[in-house]
């Protein structure tokens, strides 16, 4: 052991715990009491949550004591979950889930958790088992996180005594202290459970003596211990017929709705049979084993003994029951490094250590280390880092060497991480980058546990899961997976997309589209393939469990969200978006129903821009039938288009009175309207109404010049005006003596809606050139900014062609009017480099959207 003298290096089996030095009197009393109660057949087992060492010692204890009653720290209402937890088909990691308000609390269990070992033993040996802690809903939240664990170990992390212990032992933190003192012992030593649990009580007792009474009052530690003490008393041998079973109420008072299938629901809900274990017929009197976090054991002993400190505990609260569910869990979330603050870090490593110790034949320390190092190396190679076998061998040797130097019988997590750091890192970055990623995949993998069908999770969870699996989506673990769907040509891909879109609409957090043709966003519609990612995480199950309280199926959940989205009087853009989403989800009938509302909204639209956008969207849906089944919807949407164009015509008639600023904005809408007319084709009903109003606006001398230009462009490009009349119209607008501002405005509008007129019609170009060359220098400079804006709509090749034509008209060469920047290549490179830096800087500061703009 580190920090001890070299001369008195003890044999590995004689590792003295802190209790063997100067022991504080209160702790000494508790240690004596632990032995005394044990002799009376009441074994309080001080454990650390998710500790394989505690589980090994507990296994030995259970085999020797053979208790009749097993009491476990955990909300009393979870007793109803015991049959599901004890079901052989349940495979950890799993978690019992409670929902309270907006938050979710988890009670995770891994194969190496002492609580798991205890409850499974009880199930196999027909012992009475019960959870004895305060209800989950009665526990105050420790932090602001929405998800939290019921097994948080904040007091150990904050203890000054344990921090001092860490300093003296040369350990980094309280986790390494724990590992060093308990976790890395020889397996045989761990089975000497009396000695082992005396040590864990002393270790946690030091932290307990550090903790302020007020803090323990405030975080409900005392309230929880009061409930636990009452439950223990009720189960003591000779305590009379189990009165009320402490907190372990057999009949939760708030019986949930039958369709939710929660663990508090009646036994007839599923084939698993949710009988109450508290009234097990074979229950007999005998030894009692109480498995709780070691931090509580000292207080429980004091309360049982009636010590003065027992007065700190309040009156025990009665259990009010509550719903809970069993959900699949993964090691990534169990990992306290992931931010949930419970249990020992790197659970996948400890799962391997547990198997290496318990399997026959066990792999032994060398086998464990080799196994882990090879997996990390394999993960690194997959990430493109070539790591030689020699380095893997060196890392194995290094880990074993560190464990030997530190006096550990089994190499621990820190020994392995140190070895990987020493042997695989070739700079000052430490365990980060690819190595960090490889270590994470091996030390906290994302494999999910299994729960028996229909016993513990609500039908909604199972239905959605089964549907996903029937669509061949991979839900074997919680990793994110990508799928490319050719929805336009492959019906099964389209069904898959419809399912993913429904889960997205219902807010499950299961899937999202990341690329390809996206009807909802209206982008990349030319592409054939849609790219989606999905991941079945515990968070998805949590949302489903919560949702199952009101919706029995995914469709019902979607409709619930649909009703919420539509609320009262949705706007036109919102309506079209929802309609598109319904189509993408394959919900034709609902979409058809919604199209009635849409038609009404379109006929009452007051904003031409919103209207044109909505019509573009419906046109996309009608024209994109290959990608999404619009079925009976298509004719209705087509009818919507004619209504829409009529409304557009009506709104156009009001535009003559726009101010110049408003008109500048409206030009974009007119350009979009022109595109819409092109998409709908010459036969579309309502088209002529629009063109009529366009013509009227064009001829209206009071209309802003930019609108006149835009309308001339529309008329030219839709065939409303023959070519000859177009150049006449342009000439009329640009005749000598015209106001330079109007000239510029007209040109901007014309170029925006129909650049082809200027590019390809020689007469028009002549008129434009003449108008511009006739402007005085001063007038030209005044309108130059507007003209620049107008010509930016042209593509570079068009600009070039136009320049050639203008040069021809004015008797010069295009190259002479081109501005040629003679730029040094080095300077250009420097500029490019600066721009990269600037963009990177903006993105680093979270201002990436500026760049996008």
């Amino acid at each position: 052991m580190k920090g001890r003298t070299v001369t008195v290096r003890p044999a590995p089996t004689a590792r003295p715990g802190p209790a063997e030095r100067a022991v504080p009197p209160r702790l000494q009393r508790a240690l004596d009491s632990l032995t005394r109660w044990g002799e009376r057949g009441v074994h309080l087992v001080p454990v650390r949550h998710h500790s394989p060492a505690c589980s090994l010692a507990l296994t030995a204890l259970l085999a020797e004591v053979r208790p009749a009653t097993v009491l476990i720290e955990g909300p009393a209402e979870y007793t109803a979950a015991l049959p599901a937890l004890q079901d052989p088909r349940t495979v950890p990691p799993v978690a019992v889930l409670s929902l309270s308000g907006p938050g979710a609390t988890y009670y995770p269990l891994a194969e190496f958790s002492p609580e798991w070992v205890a409850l499974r033993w009880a199930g196999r040996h027909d012992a009475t088992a019960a959870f004895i802690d305060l209800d989950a809903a009665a526990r105050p939240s420790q932090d602001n996180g929405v998800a939290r664990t019921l097994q948080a170990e904040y007091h150990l992390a904050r203890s000054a005594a344990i921090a001092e212990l860490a300093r003296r032992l040369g350990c980094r933190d309280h986790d390494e202290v724990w590992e060093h003192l308990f976790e890395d012992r020889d397996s045989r030593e761990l089975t000497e459970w009396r000695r082992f649990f005396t040590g864990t009580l002393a270790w946690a007792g030091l932290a307990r003596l550090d903790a302020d009474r007020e803090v323990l009052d405030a975080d409900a530690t005392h309230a929880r211990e009061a409930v636990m003490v009452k439950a223990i008393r009720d189960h003591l041998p000779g305590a009379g017929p189990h009165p009320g079973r402490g907190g372990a109420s057999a009949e939760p008072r708030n019986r949930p709705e039958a369709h939710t299938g929660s663990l508090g629901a009646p036994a007839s809900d599923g084939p698993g049979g949710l009988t109450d274990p508290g009234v097990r017929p074979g229950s007999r009197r005998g030894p009692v084993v109480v498995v709780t976090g070691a931090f509580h054991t000292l207080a429980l002993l004091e309360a049982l003994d009636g010590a003065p400190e027992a007065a700190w505990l309040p009156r025990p609260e009665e259990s009010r029951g509550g719903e809970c569910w069993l959900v699949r869990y993964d090691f990534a979330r169990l990992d306290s490094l992931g931010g949930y603050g419970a249990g020992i870090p790197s659970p996948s490593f400890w799962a391997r250590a547990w198997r290496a110790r318990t399997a026959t034949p066990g792999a032994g320390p060398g086998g464990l280390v080799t196994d882990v190092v090879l997996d990390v190396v394999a993960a690194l190679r997959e990430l493109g880092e070539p790591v030689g076998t020699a380095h893997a061998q060196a890392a194995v040797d290094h880990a074993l060497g560190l464990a030997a130097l530190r006096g550990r019988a089994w190499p621990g997590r820190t020994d392995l991480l140190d070895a990987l750091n020493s042997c695989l890192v070739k700079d000052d970055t430490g365990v980060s980058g690819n190595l960090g990623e490889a270590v994470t995949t091996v030390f906290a993998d994302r494999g999910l546990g299994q729960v028996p069908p229909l016993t513990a999770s609500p039908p909604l969870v199972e239905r959605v899961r089964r549907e996903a699996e029937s669509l061949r989506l991979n839900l074997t673990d919680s990793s994110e997976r990508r799928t490319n769907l050719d929805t336009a040509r492959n019906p099964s891909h389209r069904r898959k997309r419809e399912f993913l879109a429904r889960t997205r609409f219902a807010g499950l957090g299961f899937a999202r589209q990341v690329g390809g043709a996206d009807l909802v966003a209206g982008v990349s519609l030319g592409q054939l393939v849609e790219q989606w990612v999905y991941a079945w995480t515990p968070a998805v199950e949590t949302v489903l469990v919560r949702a199952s309280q009101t919706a029995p199926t995914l469709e019902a959940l979607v409709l619930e969200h649909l009703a919420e989205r539509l609320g009262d009087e949705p706007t036109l853009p919102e309506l079209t978006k929802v309609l598109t989403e319904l189509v993408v989800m394959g919900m034709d009938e609902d979409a058809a129903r919604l199209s009635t509302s849409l038609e009404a909204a379109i006929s009452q639209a007051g904003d031409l821009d919103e209207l044109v956008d909505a019509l573009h969207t419906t046109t996309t849906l009608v024209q994109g039938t290959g990608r999404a089944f619009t079925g009976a919807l298509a004719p209705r949407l087509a009818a919507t288009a004619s209504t829409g164009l009529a409304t557009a015509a009506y709104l156009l008639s009001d535009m003559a009175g726009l101010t110049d600023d408003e008109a500048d904005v409206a030009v974009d809408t007119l350009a979009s309207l022109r595109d819409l007319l092109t998409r709908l084709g010459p036969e579309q009903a309502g088209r002529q109404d629009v063109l009529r109003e366009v013509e009227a606006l064009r001829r209206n001398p009071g209309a802003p010049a930019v609108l006149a230009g835009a309308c001339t462009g529309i008329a030219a490009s839709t065939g409303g005006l023959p070519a000859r009349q177009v150049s006449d119209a342009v000439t009329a607008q640009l005749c000598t003596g015209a106001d330079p501002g109007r000239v510029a405005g007209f040109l901007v509008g014309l170029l925006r809606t129909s650049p082809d007129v200027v590019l390809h019609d020689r007469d028009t170009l002549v008129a434009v050139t003449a108008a511009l060359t006739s402007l005085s220098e001063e007038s030209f400079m005044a309108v130059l900014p507007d003209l620049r804006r107008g010509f930016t709509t042209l593509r570079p090749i068009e600009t070039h062609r136009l320049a050639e034509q203008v040069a021809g008209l004015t008797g010069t060469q295009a190259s002479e009017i081109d501005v040629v920047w003679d730029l040094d290549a080095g300077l250009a490179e420097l500029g490019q480099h600066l721009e990269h830096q600037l963009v990177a800087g903006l993105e680093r500061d979270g201002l990436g959207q500026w760049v996008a703009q």
Partner: protein
Amino acid sequence: MTTASLPPRAVLRPPAEERWADELEVLARADAEAGAEIPFGWRLSPRAVRAFIVGDEALGVTRKFYGDDPLVDRAVVTLLGRQGLMLVGEPGTAKSMLSELLAAAISGTSTLTVQGSAGTTEDHIRYSWNYALLIAEGPSRRALVPSPIYQAMESGRLARFEEITRCPPEIQDTLVSVLSEKQLMVPELGDAYRVSAAHGFNVIATANLRDRGVHEMSAALKRRFNFETVRPIADRAFEAELISRALEAELGEQRPAMSPEVLDVLVTAFADLRTGTTATGTTVKRPEAVMSTAEAVNVGVAASMSARYLGDGTVHAADIARQLVGVALKGEEDDVQRMRFYVDSVVRERARGSAQWRGFLDAARELWG
């Protein structure tokens, strides 16, 4: 005159094995009494080596390296294997001291050292010749002048290579064959003449991240080293204790009075400028100059000397400010600006509530305007 002929007290800086000869002796005895297994070629058991560096209260062995015990564990285990040990880190993080302590404890000597520089040649790493003898006798073992690494291989001890990244990469690569084959050829003495490393031989190199860094080092050489990064001390209270102890050790009886407040000014100023942020989160511009704990000790020593011989016998914050100039301003014009910014943004604010910082501010203004 060699250091060996001087009594240890008279030597300005005796090597670790002489300075802590008593402790090494105690540890060796403890190993013998416990029957500890000692690796071939080592003077002490790995745990005793560890105890020599991180201290052992029961045996009266002092702690010499602070802040990262797991690093020491890793370094000791690395030296047990075939890989060399590369200590990298910012200047002044006690890399060289750690390498010296490891060499002293494991091999009993820390003086087999190559100091890397731009002028280091292959001869410094392999061997050179006594040219008078070479001309007189021709190539012979007697005429050969072995390098520290040659000697370490022959005698099964640790060789130290300081500032390895200061050498050109092709010179660094001379080590590749030494580390992989553990042999050194001397063709001048015949085709078969070679020095094979005895048990106990290994190399501890140190590299400074501020200079050329390790990225220019060849992959072949990197592969033969385990890298350990020595980081600056992050805990300010602990750094204060450390500096105080170092000043005690450096100055002994000559140490003038320095109040805890003045020590706090010294530690805080260095920590602020090193990390680029104050304890309360105000951002400070970090100077290019190295602001390590070792530099803080140097400033402390200089300020103490100035107070004792030129001042009133007590160290004031103004002395710290004046000595800081020598450390923080090493020719970088921008550093002057950065120091001014520090004085304007942080020191002025602190001066309102503290007489010590007031003194620091006044002296700083005289120096930096």
